[in-house]
């Protein structure tokens, strides 16, 4: 079954764009939260990850900070 994938991003952050490109190339469905406009999600992201940098990726509760391709592949089983 497809995993529940969320990304907390800003529209201007290059690594956010790269992560989303990566998901699309691998046909991974994801929910995208724009933390530059959604301040509740912004706080949620900081609480979940314990830090303030984007992107933050949440795969079934597993939190990955930044475009850590190897980690993402591993968690998604790619």
């Amino acid at each position: 079954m497809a995993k529940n994938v969320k990304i907390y991003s800003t529209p201007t952050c290059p690594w956010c764009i790269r992560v989303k490109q990566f998901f699309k190339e691998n046909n991974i469905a994801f929910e995208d939260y724009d933390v530059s406009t959604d301040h509740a999600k912004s706080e949620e992201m900081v609480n979940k990850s314990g830090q303030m940098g984007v992107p933050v990726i949440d795969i079934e509760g597993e939190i990955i900070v930044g475009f850590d391709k190897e980690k993402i592949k591993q968690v998604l089983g790619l």
Partner: protein
Amino acid sequence: MKVYDLIIVGAGPAGITACVYAARKRMDFLVITGDIGGQAAWSGDIENYTGYQFITGADLVKKFEEHMRSYDASVKEGEGVVGVEKPGELVLVKTNKGIEYQAKTVIIASGKRSKEAGASGEKEYKNKGVSYCATCDGPIFNAKIVAIIGGGNSALDAALQLTRIAKQVYVINNTPQLSGDAIMRKKVEDATNVSILNNSKVAAILGDKFVNAIRLNQAGEEKTLSVQGVFVEIGLIPNSDFVKGVKKNAQGEIIINNRNETNIPGIFAAGDVTDVPEKQIIIAAGEGSKACLSAFRYLARS
């Protein structure tokens, strides 16, 4: 141990272009890099790369990567090079995975990185209030108080972005006045929520879980400001520390001639890590191709 014809260190515009040329010359080579795209991936809008009237940094890097991957090139991504030296006939390349590679030639295309301010607490609070990318992380600081360290164009650019997001923006500049372009200076000075602190140096970044203050020295006087974000925008330094024995200039850039040769035969360098005048994506790409052709000729001669 296997001996490669060429190892390319870095996969920004210079490294990727060197890779394309090496693949087309059918060299037996390897690319070792922490990331793909380097600083180009961080660029916002690009309007001066020939063939593209407009492209974003992320999209251009995607095209670079596609081009690189269209050949059967061996790319070690996520592996950082920690040492390059030439003790004998071959160049040794050591990585942070504890692996040592050998090659007849090496191209250093490791680019530049953001300079750190050197304040205490800076490393500890990285991504916990301290950021080196206002474009990326700025929006998280909605309605918060932030400080920008620096007084040049990149600092002013960050300040302008943050005036629209943050409640209050301090610009902490260690010279008597801001040094960026006049137009940018005026915009920053005119913003109502900006305070410019000249002759000031940040001594410490303080906080608990996240940043909550900075301690600074303003013309000999100590001050503490309550801030939640600190953006360090004081320019770039070359990633050249790991290269042993090559000549570098005062900024740490690797000195090359117009064939991209360093003072050590077999070690070449290209792009922003070198003393090439002007740091541009298109220049770095051109330099990468030149370095690869020089390495190819070197191999043919020896």
